[in-house]
């Protein structure tokens, strides 16, 4: 090859490597950006008057006087809407039968849309379902629902070659010349007065329980469940993992037995997480019956097995990183082996062990598959600490799955889903950040 080409190829090669790194960074950014951006909107958003009503009535939060004053103004702004609905209904009664029938269905749709948008019509019986007792609590959802009132959607299949096309038709066209006609421009023009959007910082999203399966309120049961599961897993995994690491590093003589043990540990690390879940079901629940149904205890035990290899390995690394001189000095001073381990080696390797523990905490918090069959339920109240022995719990990872695939109103609660993912990712990344910082301090200490 010619020298120039070789140089060119060398540069191109470096370019390829850089492209790979760039693709990785971009992928990370593309994945995190929507989660962070839309997830933060579960906390910071434009809340309507309905949001403040939910807060006041369901959570006893906010200034009742101020709310009442605001509600009175809002009621005044909404009154013409209800008036127009009433007027049209009486107009309908005077119509010919066939004409009335033609109007009936579109009118019901409009009425239903307005109920969804603004909440139940004053003077009518309160609906049983909580979600029907309030209008839209968020301004972005309000605009979506307003659009649904203003336009009807129809699928157009007139072209048999192509796929169906969604067509929007203004509903106002259906009510030309009736008393309902002015309703649509009125809604469009006065929606702000009727809903009063205001910038809201709803940090209680994390600490509020959910109402009516996440339509209102926050994610406290899930957060608490995740905390229980993670801490429970640590409770079992830390002692076992650290003891195993001490044995493997300080006591065991390299040989058949130890290399066998090591193979076992690396096999454990390679077991797919869903298999851990099945094992938890078959062993902890169906064989030794740690509890009658799924429970936090069973889930914690399963998770602890999952993170055990990580803890053993990182603790081993931390113990091996302690300079030999420390140990020799302690032994030289006449300390016994056990004494040396407890008073010299463990304290010196503690930061390293903690780093491993923190990382595996993040892993335990985010794992879904092992808890599906052993601990997780979709809906549940926050548990008391003693209930964790026998009760299943909602948990962030499971409920993210559940809310975005099995919830009956998936599109209505996108903000809750994003908020949950955001919270989970934030928890895991904060734990990892802590580990990274700790590691940086350790390496500084060992170098300095």
């Amino acid at each position: 090859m010619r020298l120039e080409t070789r140089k060119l190829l060398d540069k191109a090669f470096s370019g390829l490597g850089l492209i790979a790194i760039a693709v990785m960074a971009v992928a990370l950014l593309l994945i995190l950006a929507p989660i962070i951006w839309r997830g933060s909107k579960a906390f910071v958003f434009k809340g309507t008057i309905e949001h403040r009503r939910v807060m006041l009535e369901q959570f006893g939060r906010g200034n009742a006087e101020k709310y009442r004053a605001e509600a009175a103004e809002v009621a005044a702004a909404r009154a013409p809407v209800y008036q127009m609905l009433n007027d049209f209904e009486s107009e309908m009664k005077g119509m010919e039968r066939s004409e009335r029938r033609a109007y009936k269905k579109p009118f019901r749709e409009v009425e239903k849309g307005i109920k969804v948008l603004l909440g139940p019509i004053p003077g009518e019986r309160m609906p049983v379902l909580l979600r029907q007792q309030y209008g839209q609590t968020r301004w972005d959802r309000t605009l979506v629902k307003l659009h649904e009132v203003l336009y009807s959607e129809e699928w157009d299949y007139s072209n048999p070659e192509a796929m169906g096309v969604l067509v929007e038709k203004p509903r106002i066209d259906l009510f030309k010349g009736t008393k309902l006609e002015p309703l649509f421009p009125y809604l469009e023009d006065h929606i702000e007065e009727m809903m009063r959007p205001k910038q809201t910082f709803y940090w209680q999203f994390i600490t509020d329980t959910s109402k009516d399966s996440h339509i209102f309120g926050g994610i406290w049961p899930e957060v608490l469940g995740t905390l229980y599961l993670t801490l429970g897993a640590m409770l079992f995994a830390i002692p076992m993992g650290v003891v195993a690491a001490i044995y493997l590093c300080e006591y065991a003589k390299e040989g058949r037995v130890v290399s066998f043990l090591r193979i076992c540990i690396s096999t454990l690390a390679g077991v797919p997480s869903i298999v851990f879940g099945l094992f938890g079901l078959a062993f902890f629940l169906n064989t030794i019956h740690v509890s009658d149904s799924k429970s936090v205890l069973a889930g914690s035990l399963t998770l602890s097995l999952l993170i055990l290899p990580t803890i053993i390995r990182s603790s081993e690394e931390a113990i091996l990183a302690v300079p030999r001189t420390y140990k020799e000095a302690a032994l030289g001073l006449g300390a016994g082996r056990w004494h040396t381990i407890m008073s010299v080696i463990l304290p010196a390797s503690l930061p390293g062990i903690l780093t491993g523990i923190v990382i595996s905490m993040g892993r335990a918090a985010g794992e879904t598959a092992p808890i599906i069959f052993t601990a997780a339920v979709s809906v549940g109240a926050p548990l008391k600490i003693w209930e964790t022995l026998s009760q299943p719990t909602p948990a962030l990872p499971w409920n993210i799955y559940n809310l975005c695939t099995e919830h009956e109103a998936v599109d209505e609660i996108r903000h809750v889903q994003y908020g949950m993912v955001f919270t989970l990712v934030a928890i895991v990344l904060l734990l990892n950040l802590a580990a990274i910082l700790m590691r940086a301090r350790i390496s500084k200490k060992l170098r300095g």
Partner: protein
Amino acid sequence: MSSAASRRQRFGTLLGQGFLFLVTSLSTFAVFFIFYFILKDAVPFFKEEGFREFFTSAHWYPSGHPAEFGALPIFMGTGLVTLGAIVVAVPLGIAAAVCLSDLLPFHVRQFVKPVIEVLAAIPSVAYGFFALVVFAPLLQNHGGAILSAGAWIILGPILALLVTVLGDLVLGRFSGSKKLGAVVFPTLGILAFLLIHHVARQLSGVEISSGTNALNVSVILGIMALPTVVSVSEDALQAAGRELREGSYALGATRAETIIKTIIPASISGILAAVILGVMRAIGETMVVWMASGNAARIPDPWYNMLQPVRTLTATIAGDMGEADHITGSARFHVLFAMAFCLLAFSFIMNLASEIIVRRSRKKLGK
């Protein structure tokens, strides 16, 4: 010290050591427990239904009358998705590992490492959420555009390299002058450009009927497997040592030649182990495939069609367990354990293979 006290102390030490050994082996014997309990619930299925249908039939109707347990499409789906993930993760991962170990200066590396760590730390359900809520609608609505952009990103660098090499070969044959080079390189470049443009045009016409398909899952799984591939193969590349590199440079090789002809062959077994671990990560992943693969238990037509929904072993276990009878244990319950056992056996073999490979390579490099 009296001999009695010394004996007592020795006894105490022995007891303590025994206790430590017990705890250690307890945590390692968990593996055997897992094998035993999965196998215990898998055996009834094989006894009742036999092996033949499970591995060769394409009819998966576990709730039908009579129930049919042909898991072939599910195995195929797992294989297809894993293959896709490898195609994404391996070239990218090895290129990134080379870049990290040999090309980037130390202070830049410190900013890249956290990227990998964060990619590894993000919970799988968050990846699944992204695949289902963000990526799938994008694929469905702008599938053609995304595919053609992908073609540019993948084919662009490859063809650019090819053009340089081919051009060089041509010039070498005709003991090239500068003038000839001015003709050969642009011609090849334009040809390559036209080729990519043609492919991208073809792809941009593709319409994807469902965004939850094998392609979606493969891309996301590939990204998830990246950190494993990168960090393990970077370790392997680092382990190749300074002397090899310096020897190669001393012979007049450029950096690219050193890496391709010396370092990668020297650390090939470590890289292989990295690939195996990446494959295991992709096969064992549950949430992403459950949420975003479409969960259709039929063989894509043709079998390599990535744009159709598929179903994998892990997703089947996760999804069907809720419907299977937990307590009495019907065939439907046991078939899931049979699948879990296949997963377990496969990951065990892969793990053992990677372990052996790594050990052998360490011996070879004298460490």
